[in-house]
Every structure is written in structure tokens, then in C-alpha cells.
């Protein structure tokens, strides 16, 4: 039995009296592409932010490669360096060029030499098709391009898991494709990914597992074939019906 790379145990999160996540349990194995789908406000993004410790869980554990992250045994910065995150709003550093964006973490956090960081950054920028734009500032490129740079920035840290928080939601429709195709390529190459998304086609075609969240709990999970083809819960059916109607 292979150990899961990421194990979420009874995770809960409240903001004040408002309970966003309740008793979330699931495992991520190496090479898995897990899609998290659900209505807006169902806690998908909060779950992802908790996994990257951008939000502190109210209770529950996150076990990463057998180490408990929430207990404080591993410092959050060390952990975050190993778990990449791609945001809905890109969050590229506005004061740096595309290349510098991909080098900063390697130099500051991984303590790589400048040359090494540069070569690695160029490698990944090339992979996402952004190599010609290394001298551009984030404000000078389009949304789809920004998101591809953000993916390269995350990859340059050689993460073990990559989290995507609605990576295409802030994009114009014609740019969604370019980002999804990069993600598809990553998935095919065996990257372990956890994707919060509204792109049902992507979830259906690419993921090895789909998690449907509703009102802060995991309502149903399974292979895309099971969940999309033969949903068991009524909530899942309602949610999927709404997407198919459109």
C-alpha cells in the first residue's frame, strides 16, 4: 500500500461563527489529479487555502509525506516550498519581470545560484510557451500568459504537489484553452495536482478523481466516470444538471 503524499484528516475551518469546512477527509496519492468541484461558497477554495496553510485550519490535521504539518513540526515556509499554488488572480510579483518571477523563489527559498535558477526558470517558461516574454513585466502580458507564467513559477520550485485555485476563472474565454492545455500536459506528465475548477470538461477528461463539495462537506467523491456518469447523491445530480443545462 503506497502512502498518500497528502492526507487530510477531519479538517474544519470556521470564520467566527461561520463554519466553512466541516470534517473534511481525503487522500492525495502521487500522480493523482484530483478535481474539486462544487457551487460557489461550498468551501472549495478555502479547502485549498487551508491545504497550503494560507488559512489556518480551525481543527484537523494535514499530513504531508507522513509529517504532520498542522502540529508545527515542519515550518509552514518549508512546507509551502514543496506544495506549489496557482491562484485565480495569478499573483505574479508586479515589481519583477517574468523571468525574475520564476527565479525569486529558487534564489531566496531554495538558495540556488543565480545561473542555476535562471536555467531552471527558462526551462519551465519554455514548457509553458512563455520563454520569449522573459523580459516583460506582468502588467504587459495577457491574463492567460500571466497564468502560464504563474504555473512556471510554481513548477520552478520543483513542488511535489501543485494546487490550482480556479486557475481559469479570471480569464477571458479565449484564454482559458491555453492554460488548460498546459495543465493537461502537466497531468499527462504525472504531476500530482489538486484542482479547484468550474471547468467540468477538464475535470471529466483529465482527473483521476473528482470530489464534489457542498456546504462545506465532501458530498461525493469518485472517479470522473462514476461521478459524472452515475452520481449517487441528489445534490450531485442537481449540481451536474445545472452545468449540463447551460
Amino acid at each position, binding site marked *: *500500500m*503506497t502512502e498518500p503524499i497528502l492526507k487530510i484528516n477531519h479538517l474544519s475551518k470556521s470564520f467566527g461563527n461561520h463554519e466553512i469546512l466541516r470534517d473534511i477527509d481525503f487522500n492525495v*496519492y*502521487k*500522480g*493523482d489529479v484530483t478535481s474539486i468541484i462544487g457551487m460557489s461558497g461550498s468551501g472549495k477554495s478555502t479547502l485549498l487555502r487551508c491545504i*497550503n496553510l*494560507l488559512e*489556518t485550519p480551525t481543527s484537523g490535521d494535514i499530513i504531508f509525506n507522513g509529517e504532520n504539518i498542522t502540529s508545527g513540526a515542519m515550518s509552514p*515556509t*518549508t*512546507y*509551502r*516550498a*514543496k506544495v*506549489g*499554488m496557482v*491562484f485565480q*488572480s*495569478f*499573483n*505574479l*510579483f*508586479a*515589481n519583477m*519581470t517574468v523571468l525574475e518571477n520564476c527565479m*525569486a*523563489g529558487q534564489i*531566496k*527559498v531554495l538558495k540556488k545560484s543565480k545561473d542555476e535558477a*535562471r*536555467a531552471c526558470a*527558462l*526551462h*519551465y*517558461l*519554455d*514548457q509553458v510557451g512563455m*520563454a*520569449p*516574454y*522573459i*523580459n*516583460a*513585466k506582468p502588467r*504587459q502580458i495577457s491574463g492567460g500568459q500571466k497564468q502560464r507564467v*504563474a504555473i512556471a*513559477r*510554481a*513548477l520552478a*520550485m*520543483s513542488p511535489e504537489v501543485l494546487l490550482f485555485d480556479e486557475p481559469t476563472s479570471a480569464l477571458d474565454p479565449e484564454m482559458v484553452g491555453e492554460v488548460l492545455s498546459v495543465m493537461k*500536459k*502537466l*497531468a*499527462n*506528465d*504525472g*504531476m500530482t495536482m489538486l484542482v479547484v475548477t468550474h471547468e467540468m470538461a477538464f475535470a471529466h477528461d483529465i482527473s*483521476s478523481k473528482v470530489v464534489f463539495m457542498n456546504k462545506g462537506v465532501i458530498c461525493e467523491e469518485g472517479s470522473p466516470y462514476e461521478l459524472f456518469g452515475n452520481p449517487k447523491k441528489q445534490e450531485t445530480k442537481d449540481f451536474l444538471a445545472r452545468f449540463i443545462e447551460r
Partner: protein
Amino acid sequence: MERIIDLGHDMARIWAQYYPAYMTGVRNTLILAFIATLAGGIIGFICGILNTIPYSKNDPAVKRGFIAFIRAIVRIYVEFFRGTPMVLQAVFIFYGLPYFTFNKVQFTGNSGIWIASLIIVSINTGAYMAESVRGGILSIDRGQTEGAMAIGMNHIQTMTSVIMPQALRNIMPQVANNFIINIKDTSVMFIIGFMDLFAQHRNIVGINYAFFPSAAIEMLIYLAMTFTASCLLRFIEKRMDGNDNYELVLADIATAAGNYNFPNKGTPFDEQNREVAHMENEERINSEYVAENHFISQTPSAEQTETIGKGAQ
């Protein structure tokens, strides 16, 4: 009209006679204002970083208490130095320190006056800058901090390499403001005997009683200094914004990327493919052998990587 011509004559006469004194004043004023603004800016940035150290409810009480203590100190510093006149602060420090230390700490001679003036104006500017910097930090989108945290940067790294450079750009108009205010307000340092431009005026009119012509000269000089400073800082702001265009790079990328041979591990791209992932899934039930074998065959050998590098060259 006649009076204006007369004034011109008087000013020319006094300038001709005393211009070395005025120029010394200009030099002293500019040096003091420049260094104090710079030092004040640094103090402001340090206060800004200290003021924004994050903490959560889960942190131990000691850490939270310490952070609260630091914030209180910064707050007291800002409120005190922003809330009292610089003239009084000058007197307070220049005479107060020797008073409390029974003359063990003294500002003696010309260098003593310089040191005291630099300290006072810097601390004063720092108090104003602390608030400007705080505003500058608050103006930066929260996503920038999250982006930096997500790649594993700590607070100091996030601040120095992501937030502060952007905050600095945003508060440049404030820095310019402070520099100009310092050029003018260092004049109150005459109270502890600092020989700035205004102090020269007091000396000169003490000899010849030509109050108005000398004041007119001073006015012109101050205006010239502040206007130059203002233009210079506008120029610096423009430089900080950088070029609006960027060049597409097509040539050397392939070489550089191809030469990178991933010393410790392969890339996530070649580490494992989809097929293998499936195999591993099955392997949880089945045997370990198949996946293991595939894994090895997927990783490029050192030889392969080298050829790729050479090919690209």
C-alpha cells in the same frame, strides 16, 4: 518699481560680499536634509516591517506578546515625534542627554552639533515615514503577499523582495514631500547652533542689518533647492516605472534551457507519465515490479540529457 531695482542692487551687493557663507549654508542644509531623509526612510521601512509582522491566534502567547510589545513601541515613537515640534525635540535631545547622563554623553564641538542634528531630523522624518510606509504596504494587493508565501518565502523575504519595492514606488511622492520639508525645516536646527542656510542669514544680518535683501536671497535659494529636488525626484519616479516596452527573446533560450540537467531530480514532466501513474495505482493492489521498471525507463539518462544540451547548442 524703483524699490525692486534697489532691492536687486542690495541683494547683489550682499551676495558678492557674503556668498561663501551662503554657499556653506546651502551645502550644510542639503547634506543634512539628504542624509536625514535617507535615514528617516530606512527607519520608516523598518517600522513598516515591524508593524506588519503577521501572527495568528494559534501562535504561543510569548510570540504574540512580543509582537504586541514591538507594535506598541513603534506606535509610541510615531506619536511622540510626530506630535511635538522639531525645535523642541532638538533642545530636548541636545541638552537632555547630557543632563540625564551627567555629561557622560555630550554633543561637543562642530561634529557634536552635526551628529545631534542628523539624529533629530532623521528620527523626526522616520516618524512621518513610518506612517507613509504603513500606508504604502497596505496599498499593495494582498495577493502579492500570498504569492510570495505560496512559494515558501518568510515574512522578511516577502517584505524585502516583493512588498517593499512596490511600496517604495507608491510612496515616492511622500519621500519627495519629506525631502522638501526637510530642506526647509532643517532651519530650526539653528537652535542648537547648526550652521544651515537660515543660520547664515542670521549671522549676516547681525553684522549689516540688511534684513530684507538677505531674506530675499534666502527665499530664492530655498525655492531653487526645493524645485530642483522636486524635479529630480519626479525623474527618479519615472526611472522606477521602467520602460513601457519589452523585447521578445527568441535566440538563447533553447540553449540555456537545454543545458539544464536537473542535478537532483528530473522535472515533473519527465519524472513519471500518466501510464506509470496508473500502473502505480494498480500496484497498490498488484505488484511493485512493473511500475518500478517503467519509472526507470522514463527517466532520461545522463547521456541523453547531454546530447539534448549539445543539440540545442
